[in-house]
């Protein structure tokens, strides 16, 4: 098995929910190097030759396979940009588990910029899980993910994007273009605390007839952290788009949400909902009336909100 220390093992568990080598296809990237890689009959995991990153090719009609591609950085000051391209063959059903964990105990910033591009064929069902986590005594844990998706006819893609904790700065960009009858469901969950800064920009183009998008952003901003969300849906034909941005703020945190909808067809149905506020006193009171302390009640509500 790969040679990981305890900190790295913990990071791996946090971001990919695994203790060791998983079954199926994988690539483990630690401090800028691949320390374990595996392809399967249906999934080819190949290192790029012109830049850092992977080409992952999933054969047509691959069913219920999982690919793990976690990134761990424990070397302070390490900076990298990684390009991963996914080519998902028609009729495939696949789960991709990505994510990045940074431990920083040094004076320099550690930065991981991950650029993931998905080319999703026809009639596919794809689930992409990406978790980000930072730990260690030093600040400067920076994660900037870019996720681009090109989704062909009749395919369904679900994104679970989560920033668990400890990331000092993030600038997230998620873009998707959908063809006929394609569907996307994006669930983004972010927690910031201390002086952390998070920006997230999600742009979805509903290009094909009867394409649909559902974007749910849930975030919690604590202490003096700041968050800035931009959610944009363009409907170019008969399509349906819904975005929902909910944020809880505590202490002196700040959250800005900017929704925008662009209907370029009479038959585009686009909806946006947004709500930002502190935890309602009635919610805290109800949980206290069941026996929790105020702090326990707040933690329960925040954990549930980001679950």
């Amino acid at each position, binding site marked *: 098995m790969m040679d990981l220390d305890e900190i790295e093992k913990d990071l791996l568990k946090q971001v990919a929910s695994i203790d060791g080598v998983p079954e199926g296809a994988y690539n483990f990237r630690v401090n800028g190097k691949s320390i374990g890689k595996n392809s399967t009959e249906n999934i080819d995991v190949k290192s790029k030759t012109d830049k850092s990153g992977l080409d992952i090719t999933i054969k047509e009609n691959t069913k219920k396979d999982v690919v793990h591609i976690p990134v761990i950085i424990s070397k302070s000051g390490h900076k990298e940009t990684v390009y991963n391209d996914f080519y998902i063959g028609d009729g495939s059903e696949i789960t991709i588990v990505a994510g990045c964990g940074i431990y920083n105990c040094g004076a320099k910033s550690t930065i991981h910029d991950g650029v993931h591009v998905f080319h999703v064929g026809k009639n596919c069902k794809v689930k992409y899980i990406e978790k980000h986590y930072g730990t260690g005594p030093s600040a400067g844990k920076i994660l900037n993910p870019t996720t681009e998706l090109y989704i062909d006819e009749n395919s369904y893609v679900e994104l679970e994007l989560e920033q668990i904790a400890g990331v000092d700065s993030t600038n997230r960009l998620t873009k998707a273009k959908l063809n006929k009858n394609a569907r996307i469901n994006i669930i983004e969950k972010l927690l910031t605390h201390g002086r952390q800064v998070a920006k997230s920009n999600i742009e979805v183009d509903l290009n094909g007839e009867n394409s649909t998008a559902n974007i749910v952003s849930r975030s919690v901003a604590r202490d003096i952290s700041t968050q800035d969300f931009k959610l944009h849906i363009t409907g170019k034909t008969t399509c349906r788009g819904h975005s929902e941005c909910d944020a809880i703020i505590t202490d002196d945190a700040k959250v800005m949400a900017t929704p925008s909808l662009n209907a370029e067809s009479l038959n585009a149905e686009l909806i946006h909902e947004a709500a930002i506020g502190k935890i309602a006193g009635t919610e805290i009171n109800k949980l206290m*009336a069941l026996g*929790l302390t105020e702090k326990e009640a707040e933690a329960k509500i925040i954990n549930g*909100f980001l679950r």
Partner: protein
Amino acid sequence: MLELKNISFKVKDGDEDRQILDDVSIDFNPGELIVLTGPNGSGKSTLAEIIMGLKTPDHGQIILEKEDITKKSITERAKLGISYSFQQPVCFKGVTVKDLLEIANPEDQEFKTLKTVGLEKSEYLDREVNKTLSGGELKRIEIATVLAKNSKVMIFDEPEAGIDIWSLDNLIQVFQKLHDENKDKIIIIISHQKPIMDIADRIVILKKGKL
């Protein structure tokens, strides 16, 4: 025994004070099912909220089993054995029915009280307690949390609100059974419904903040 001694409570209404409760004193005895009734705005819910610690009285004392709990927090009162079914069920984002029932009674992993209020575990346990549920469903979940807590003092604030007639009949049977099987508990129901008053040991009327 739960004793309320000389409880007064007022709120600001523009420049003036409006007296909601005016020197209310009353005892509630173990084994009693009391219906607290009276016109809208007479102070019934305020009295219940003062017992739970959600509101602080301007004057007066709350004594539970000889202990003065007037200055105790909501949490402390919950731990001492008081529970309250809110008149307006609270909606959450992310908190499920299971979460609430587990907090109320971590030992009941069967979540029996959900069935008691006529809701199926398989259908409701993992649902968020939010407005995707109907008013009647939220109300029944609210009642289920208090039944799960199984406290010495249980207060139900207008349990019939939003509940259909069939469910109300069922609910009355639930209260009757709870009363029959628990002679050490104090059950206080705030209600305007005659069928609920019919099962009461004592009916207490509040009018303009006075008994």
